[in-house]
């Protein structure tokens, strides 16, 4: 079964099937035959088969669910809000931040602190930029308000640390200049995760 019919969101075009759930018996004979049918129906055996089928699927058909977490990781959604990243312009390699200060203004937990000055070309330059990750609630407003897509949320979600005060400086979050070609562009709001197709499943309603 392909994914096409699950991706079809046009209501009314799908072929829905009504389940035959049967009628409650009215006559004594009907009730008796229902008791007989239910007594000798191999429901318990079917239950055994279901678990055995899952075992066969897991062992021989590669449908094991376990992800050995620290060694292998599932792809996360591009919308996931993890540790921030500061992006660079791909053409010049200069950082994208124009020092407008909107992120500092909008931050509802007041964890972004920045300072700017004019450089020799009378352009705004970021002289100081820190995010206090002890305070940050990862609401994503800073990334949403940024007019230049300069501050985005990256994929780094493992941020357990031994230090309570965990400030992050501008240079720490900035893409290293030698890794500019590896810089991941933000997919935009509404983007789906890379493994979205694998996650589509038939709803188990039809038992």
């Amino acid at each position, binding site marked *: 079964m392909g994914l096409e019919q699950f991706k079809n969101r046009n209501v009314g075009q799908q072929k829905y099937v009504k389940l035959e759930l049967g009628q409650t018996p009215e006559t004594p004979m009907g009730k008796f035959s229902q008791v007989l049918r239910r007594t000798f129906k191999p429901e318990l055996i079917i239950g055994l088969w279901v678990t*055995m089928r899952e075992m066969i699927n897991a062992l021989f058909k590669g449908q094991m669910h376990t992800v050995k977490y620290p060694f292998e990781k599932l792809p996360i959604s591009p919308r996931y809000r993890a540790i921030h990243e500061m992006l660079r312009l791909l053409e010049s390699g200069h950082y994208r931040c124009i020092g407008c200060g909107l992120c500092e203004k909008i931050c509802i937990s007041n964890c972004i602190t920045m300072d700017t000055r004019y450089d020799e070309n009378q352009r705004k330059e970021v002289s100081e930029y820190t995010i206090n990750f002890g305070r940050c609630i990862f609401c994503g407003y800073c990334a949403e308000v940024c007019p230049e897509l300069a501050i985005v949320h990256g994929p780094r979600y493992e941020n357990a640390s031994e230090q309570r005060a965990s400030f992050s400086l501008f240079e720490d979050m900035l893409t290293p200049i030698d890794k500019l070609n590896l810089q991941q562009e933000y997919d935009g709001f509404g983007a789906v995760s890379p493994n979205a197709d694998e996650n589509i499943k038939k709803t188990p309603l039809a038992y």
Partner: protein
Amino acid sequence: MEVVTYTNVETFVQHLPEVTAAGVWIKAIIILAVISAVAGFGTYLERKVLAFMQRRLGPMHVGPYGLLQIIADGIKLFTKEDIVPQNANRLIFMLAPAITAATAFIALAAVPVFPNFTIPQWVPVLGGTFVPSIAADLNIGILFVLGMMAAGLYGPLLAGMAQANKWGIIGAARTAVQFLSYEVVTGLSILAPIMLVGSLSFVDFNAAQAGGISHWLIWQQPVAFILFLIAGFAETNRTPFDLLEHEAEVVSGYATEYSGMRWGMFFIGEYANMITISIIAAVVFLGGYSEEGIGWLTIILKVGFFFFLMLWIRAAWPHVRPDQLMWLCWKVLMPIAVINVVITGIVMMV
């Protein structure tokens, strides 16, 4: 003590080489060592099989495929602090796990485990000793094993009542209810095959079914087989009837206050009981073993199947309530067992 064992065993075994006290001692040590190890391995198997049936991997990190997990668990159990709760009855609390483990192993004494063999002559001291397959080949073997397994109920019962814990008390009460109910069905269900064979000895059962699959008693006594299996699950506290340690209702039942090796002894006893029930089912209903060739492999396969069946059912089925358990036992299974015995008797008379 040794002399008594010697004479008893010799009286009942005529057709085999002479069974010496040394042979019985060696057999007892083999049973204790191997079954303890197998019980530990059983926990690993259970975790693995349940995991596969839920499409998980199970223990993977300690050793290859998690095999050394048993050793890690063993070290943990042995080194844990032995806690006795404040208001518990100290003596009974400390004795109860020993009852479970001891009765489980005593029951195994009268059950055929591993083939007969003679220690080769070149082995120093013990060379030439004949080691029997059954440590004590009683002529009332089945009665003895069932009696011992029934005595095992004192383990959970005393443990639950001694620990001054409400979950323990409920667990103990449920133990009593469950065992009292199911002993009846076990005895009645196995009575019909006993009538057919006319003996209570496992060796006679084995001999009566020699000669291929068509001679197995399961074909003559399918109802007794299913009843015995159900009762066996109840006796070993396996899943459809594991209400005495049902986590969702009574924390851990009779084992709530136990930790460390005392808790481990309950588990070794439970797994040893599972093996005993599997062996009884295999010998009584599925033809048992044969002495020649690889005949012993067949009983190991049968026991393995029953062990797997217990894990399989645990993965598949929900458990019953105490009232459903008693209803099932007294109103359904016991009448069926009695009718089965009566019909078997009539068929034998005609």
